[in-house]
């Protein structure tokens, strides 16, 4: 568990972060979101002591981070940033090995870990290990940035707009991979982003900041259903909110037996793991009131009707 308590940082006249209180549960992803200059990066950097707070404390599993030297603390915390910051004079292998080497891991341990991470990120060792960063695409560089941050098996990963510079398709794919890896490793992630879609897609908890203050924090659903007046409502969007809420729910929540539905013989299908938002799009595309729901193996589970989707969110204003 990560606890930020009354965290404040003043730069000269300017209060970048103002008495911020936030708790992030272990094994969850927390997205810090807000406009440019609202203090997101400053907050993140106070967690690994790249910036020291003016006042307030940060506790990791109840332990004050100031009990440890900044270097030792940082080697325990993964850090991935926008612009990646890969070392251009070191190969992919050596970049990933950075923190394990600082921690004096043995050669065999490091070698095994680099192989494991490259495999985890679906980058073949033979192709990539001995490449230099400038030869990689933006998406590949970002993956290596994540691999490097994860190298020493940190329990906490800090990410500052890690996918900001990528095209939408690559971004979405990497977001998917990140979520998968995070679930698999059970690590805690605090992620800074500008992008509400990204926050909703990835996070278990979204924390909205403005002008150094925390305005509201909660699950994506809670934020979408009951945004606070003003900045938060603006950020979560007006009419889009309904669609965003649908994006958080899955088709299998609304499956009905097919015989309850009036349907034609050859119905187009949706898979049970799809989001309701995508299912809605398919209804519209095929001009159907009802679609057949199948599982990954292709077995029919039932059907899903347009009405069910339209009534799924009764919080509509």
């Amino acid at each position, binding site marked *: 568990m990560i606890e930020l308590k009354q965290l404040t940082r003043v730069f000269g006249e300017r209060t970048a972060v103002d008495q911020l209180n936030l708790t992030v549960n272990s094994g969850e992803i927390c997205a810090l979101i807000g406009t440019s200059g609202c203090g997101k990066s400053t907050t993140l950097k106070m967690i690994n002591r790249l910036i020291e707070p003016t006042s307030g404390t940060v506790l990791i599993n109840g332990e004050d981070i100031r009990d440890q030297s900044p270097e030792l603390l940082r080697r325990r915390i993964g850090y991935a940033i926008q612009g990646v910051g890969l*070392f251009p*004079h070191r190969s992919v292998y050596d970049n990933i090995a950075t923190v394990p080497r600082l921690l004096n891991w043995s050669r065999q341990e490091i070698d095994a870990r680099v192989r494991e991470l490259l495999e985890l990120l679906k980058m073949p060792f033979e192709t990539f290990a001995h490449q230099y960063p400038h*030869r990689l695409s933006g998406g590949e560089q970002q993956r290596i940035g994540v691999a490097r941050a994860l190298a020493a098996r940190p329990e906490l990963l800090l990410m500052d707009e890690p996918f900001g510079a990528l095209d939408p398709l690559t971004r979405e794919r990497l977001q998917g991979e990140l979520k998968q890896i995070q679930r698999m490793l059970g690590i805690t992630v605090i992620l800074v982003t500008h992008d509400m879609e990204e926050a909703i897609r990835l996070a278990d908890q979204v924390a909205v900041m403005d002008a150094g203050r925390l305005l509201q924090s909660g699950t994506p659903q809670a934020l979408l259903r009951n945004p606070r007046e003003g900045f938060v409502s603006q950020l979560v969007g007006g009419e889009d909110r309904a669609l965003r809420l649908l994006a958080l729910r899955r088709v299998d929540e609304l499956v009905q037996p097919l015989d309850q539905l009036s349907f034609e013989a050859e119905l187009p299908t949706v898979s049970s793991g799809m989001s309701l938002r995508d299912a809605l799009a398919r209804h519209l595309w095929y001009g159907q009131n009802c679609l057949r729901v199948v599982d990954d193996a292709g077995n029919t589970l039932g059907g899903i009707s347009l009405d069910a989707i339209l009534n799924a969110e009764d919080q509509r204003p």
Partner: protein
Amino acid sequence: MPLVSYQVPGASARAGITFDRLGATLSTLTLIALVLLPVVTLQPNRILPGEGVELEQLARYPTFMLFLGLLILTLTGVTVVSRHWIRLGLATLTLLALVVATGSIASPLLDNRGAFARLALGSGFWAIGLLLGLMMTDAVVKMGLSARWRLVIVTVCLGAIVSVLSSGLWDHLSLMLEYRNQERFWAQGGRHLLLAFGSVLPALLIGVPLGIGCHRSAALRTFMIPLLSLLQTIPSLAMFGLLMIPLTLLTQAFPVLNELGIRGIGAAPAVLALFLYSLLPIVSNTAAGFDGLNPAVIDAARGMGMNARQRLWQVQLPLALPVMLSGLRIVVTMNIGLVAVAGLIGGGGYGTYIFQGLGQTATDLVLLGTLPTIVLAFVAALVIDTLIEFSRKERG
């Protein structure tokens, strides 16, 4: 720059033919030099000015005819052939032919002219040699060769020239006679390099930390850079003079310094002056190299948990190295030149020959000091270019 090569429309269709304006200009200049300037001059003795030997007279010798034939081929080549390696090959061969030809005509020309007569290389030789060098440089630049390959080419050319010289082919030329008189020629070379690098090493030891300091502290920078720039504007002879006074006083006060070889005159003020000159390029390039580092990389290094020393050695220095090395390149070439000036105050090195030669109006002795100085500076620059290339490797 008007001197650019371009393809004649239509001509480009025929493979390998072009019209090169730079090549044409260099060729014209070479022909003018060949006609107007003497390739070799005959001197009655070491000091008296010589008389140019007519081209017709030279053309009687087959080696010289061979050179002339190659020269015409080269001049045509650099004007119309578009393959740069062909131009490079032709110009190199012609340069070698020139060296061989001038050597082989020496003893027949000197026959029956008395024991003191000498054959000296004339302005035509140097002009044509320089123009051929320019043609070679142009070809090498346009081939886009890496520093490593340029170093190989220069080494091969120098090797060829040295083997011609040591084969005795030039033994009758005045330059080689002058060389034979100087037993300490190679030792002077060693001393020249020792003086040049002896000032670079302390300048690196002090300049690099100062440069890093300037990168970190704006206050230090606004104080250091103007101060070092001011030092840089003091002419070298004035600097030697300025340093001689305090050094003399110092050695009078502490005779023990004398025993260490430190005197107001000689190597000490020279090395000290070169050290002072070296500081600015090293300090400013180090600061620039560190300034230019990508902040995301430094942020990442900190975020990974590297401490200040690890960041410096593992990230900042290796990444700033190419810019720092280009500062070193400036310093080394500059110092090799300035050491020649230090010959005047008894510092030793090739400058000694230059100033002795000037005193005796013996042109060949001056050349014996100048040519190796130029070669040293040229080769040193290329070696550092190669180092820069390696330090940039794979970095994109």
